[in-house]
């Protein structure tokens, strides 16, 4: 990597022709991917992402360039190429400050545990899934480990490095009976090293995955209808992530492409909804000490008792919106210019009890596990898939149903939340947007939405 004086010199060069902000982002990321299928270690791959990204801004106009050739000369070439887009007077660069310590409490980093030892743990989980039921025809367990080291330097004096250590275990089961195949999966992840296996109860997850795949074999196809939906905790939070999180990002707000534009201080949901995006939840998959613009992450209040309190804002959009950045500038790698993104986004716990919410529902759908979802911020229309669902009839969970898809409008759904329980949990996912694919937590306690459109293939004559 480059010396501090070289970086300073490159930033000086960057601001010679009118740009008023320059940033250099250096990255060295190592990853390892171990895959076990039906008890056998079938592949172990290593990966490396390495390069430099250079960003210049004049006012709100931005140019970005990146290369994997990390030397003073090759980055200078990128800088010269980029600065040719601007014309104007030289802006003075603030001298680079000192690095502040980042939180690094990883107990078992990637290289401290052998691939054999890691493989053994995964083999045991794969075998556990496989042996759960004779109808399980495939049992996958995978470990993805990533160590991302970044250094961010900018013309306002920021000189900050950060190390992000992620571990994620994917468990999947495929069950087969009478020609019918069904799959179920779980993918718990943490900002941790191999100690994730000490912190997370994977044996329980393995059983749940196997049980879920087998149960789906006898589930009925969901019948399309409009009905109350109880969304379970943890990954159920993907509803808030899609329907409200994305439209609260400055990328949508700054362009006026969000139903939440101009609504700060106004009612956007029912009184029982309070929501946060927190960049620094201890050990969380979505956490960072410093964001990808070198700003410390923080806990951002988004909605309080139904009233809109804040957006998620990056450096450039802060200039556009004339507001402060919120430590939310993120990117997948040096191949992306940073922009406003979520970290750990969640609906805060309420006062209701899970059991009471089910008891209180005469007829509806209990979405126990959700798959992924999508939102179009400009229209606010969102959808998400139910991986494991049950009908609620007369306050009791009855038949398992499969293939349910939930759709709705972001601005309506918050008002339709009529129950929030006290059992907040997080679920982990990869979130894709303008600046690439990044690890995020979604989270919520069990909630009830009074009415949603539910699709499904059931009810065919």
């Amino acid at each position, binding site marked *: 990597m480059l010396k501090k004086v070289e970086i300073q010199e490159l930033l000086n060069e960057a601001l010679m022709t009118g740009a008023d902000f320059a940033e250099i982002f250096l990255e060295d990321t190592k990853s390892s991917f171990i895959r076990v299928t039906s008890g056998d*270690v079938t592949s172990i791959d290593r990966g490396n992402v390495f390069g430099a990204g250079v960003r210049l801004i004049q006012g709100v106009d931005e140019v970005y360039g990146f290369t994997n*050739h990390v030397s003073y000369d090759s980055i200078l070439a990128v800088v010269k190429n980029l600065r040719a887009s601007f014309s104007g007077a030289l802006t003075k660069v603030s001298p680079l400050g000192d690095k502040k310590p980042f939180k690094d409490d990883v107990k078992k980093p990637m290289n401290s545990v052998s691939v054999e030892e890691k493989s053994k743990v995964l083999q045991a989980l794969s075998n556990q899934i496989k042996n759960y039921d004779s109808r399980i025809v495939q049992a996958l367990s995978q470990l993805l480990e990533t160590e991302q080291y970044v250094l961010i330097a900018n013309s306002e004096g920021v000189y900050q490095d950060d190390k992000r250590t992620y571990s994620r275990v994917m468990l999947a089961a495929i069950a087969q009976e009478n020609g019918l195949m069904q799959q179920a999966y779980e993918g718990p992840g943490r900002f941790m090293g191999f100690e994730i296996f000490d912190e997370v109860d994977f044996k329980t997850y393995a059983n749940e995955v196997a049980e879920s795949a087998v149960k789906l074999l006898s589930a009925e196809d969901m019948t399309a209808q409009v009905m109350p939906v109880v969304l379970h905790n943890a990954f159920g939070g993907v509803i808030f992530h899609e329907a409200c999180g994305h439209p609260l990002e400055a990328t949508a707000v700054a362009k006026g492409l969000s139903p939440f534009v101009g609504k700060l201080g106004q009612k956007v949901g029912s009184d029982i909804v309070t929501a946060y995006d927190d960049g620094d939840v201890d050990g969380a998959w979505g956490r960072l000490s410093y964001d990808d613009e070198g700003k410390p992450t923080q806990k951002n209040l988004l909605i309080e008792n139904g009233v809109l309190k804040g957006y998620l804002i990056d450096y450039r959009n802060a200039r556009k919106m004339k507001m402060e950045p919120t430590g939310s500038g993120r990117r997948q790698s040096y191949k992306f210019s940073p922009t406003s993104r979520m970290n750990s986004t969640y609906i805060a716990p309420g006062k209701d009890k899970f059991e009471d919410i089910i008891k209180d529902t005469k007829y509806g759908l209990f979405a126990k596990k959700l798959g992924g979802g999508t939102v179009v911020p400009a229209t606010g229309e969102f959808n998400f898939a139910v991986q494991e669902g049950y009908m609620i009839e007369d306050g009791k969970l009855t038949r398992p149903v499969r293939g349910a898809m939930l759709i709705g409008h972001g601005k309506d759904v918050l008002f339709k939340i009529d129950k929030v329980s006290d059992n907040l949990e997080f679920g982990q996912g990869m979130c894709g947007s303008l600046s690439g694919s990044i690890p995020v937590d979604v989270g919520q306690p069990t909630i009830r939405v009074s009415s949603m459109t539910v699709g499904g293939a059931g009810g065919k004559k």
Partner: protein
Amino acid sequence: MYQNWIDLGLKKGITDLEVFAVRNKSLKLSVYQNKLDQHVQSDVESITIRGIYDNKLSTVRFENLSDVHVDQLLDALKANAKALTVVEPAIIYEGSKSYPEVKDELFDFGSVPVIKKIDLLKDLEQKILANPFVTQVQSTMYQEIDTETTLVNSKGLHLSRHNTYAYAYAIGVFQKEEDIKTAYDIKLAKNFDEFDVVKMAETTITKGVSSLGGTSMTSGEYPVVFSNEMFADILEVFTSIFSGEAAYRNMTFLKDKVNQQIAGKDINLIDDPLHPDAHFKTGFDDEGVACSKRYVVENGVFKGFNHNLKTASIFKEEPTGNGFHGGISTTNFYLEPQEKDFDTLILDIKDGVYITDLVGLHAGVKTVSGEFSLQASGFKIKNGKIDHPIKMIVVSGNFFDAINHVKGIGSDLKFGLSGVGSPSVYIESLMIGGEA
């Protein structure tokens, strides 16, 4: 450089090695409100080395090309290969007898001044904004990509390919009273002169305006026609079920179904690396195996899996030239078109749905079971004609069931950027979720 890495690996006791190098140069531009909003340029060389050690194959991918780093990675490759517990065929390929000639022109997009590309976007934005229903153009995008791929291995194989293309689009936001819709149309070009701003603006506007004023509809069972683009999107998700890896791992229902009828008699699914209408053509896969045109499904009969070297060896079949990105994927995979134009295709539908947009394909499709349930919008079909727009519905069914109930296939084959193509397809009946 590549040969040095191979030599270093061999010296370390790795039996065979292959270097797969991709150099990607790109320029990306975006215009917003008549100003340049984004300008990204890049030049990245990424390397994949596969090596056989202890009769097992392992892979390292990297972008730090320093010798010290490569040395460390080759050691890691050895350790990783050693830790594999399963012995599967591990093959570095000596090469096919011959390779098809790829007739694909190269164009130096870099020779066109940047200002012309920015003007293209500004012009496109203005032309779309001129429509009274357009409240704004959410974003515009132009990207040009130049990719050079080189494959060198210790068996003496040395292959390379070079590909250039660019694409552009603008996302318009259309509004009529309270109803907001977005629409765009991606134009891919092999030569800068292919960009026709007038036509691009027209297509985007037609898409946006025609979908305005959409309503939901009554839930129930309806005949459904998918537009060519949407059926290609669905097909793309299901390409994985035709992979030899999925068969070997018990992850496709097609296992043990080779030479059996799996779809209606008029269904032909073809993988053609050199199809003249496809956007990308290739003469060899990432393992150096020659590519060729192949029927995957012919007259509804499943003809066999797509293989890379490993799965071909496991199934004792010839490799099909589908080894890409360390796994198996299709090249240009498409549903063979038939004669009917669109108007004729929908002529006998009394009360049906024409779907022109699907959202959430990454979450709403289960490839293992064939089930899909997707947010959709489009149009009602009434008495054989396109009627009013519909939105916020869910279309659900089973893919394996649907390809056995195809009532009509159009003539309008179109390939998407993903390499998957389809004409419009009329399915006898699917479930639509909407209003009660």
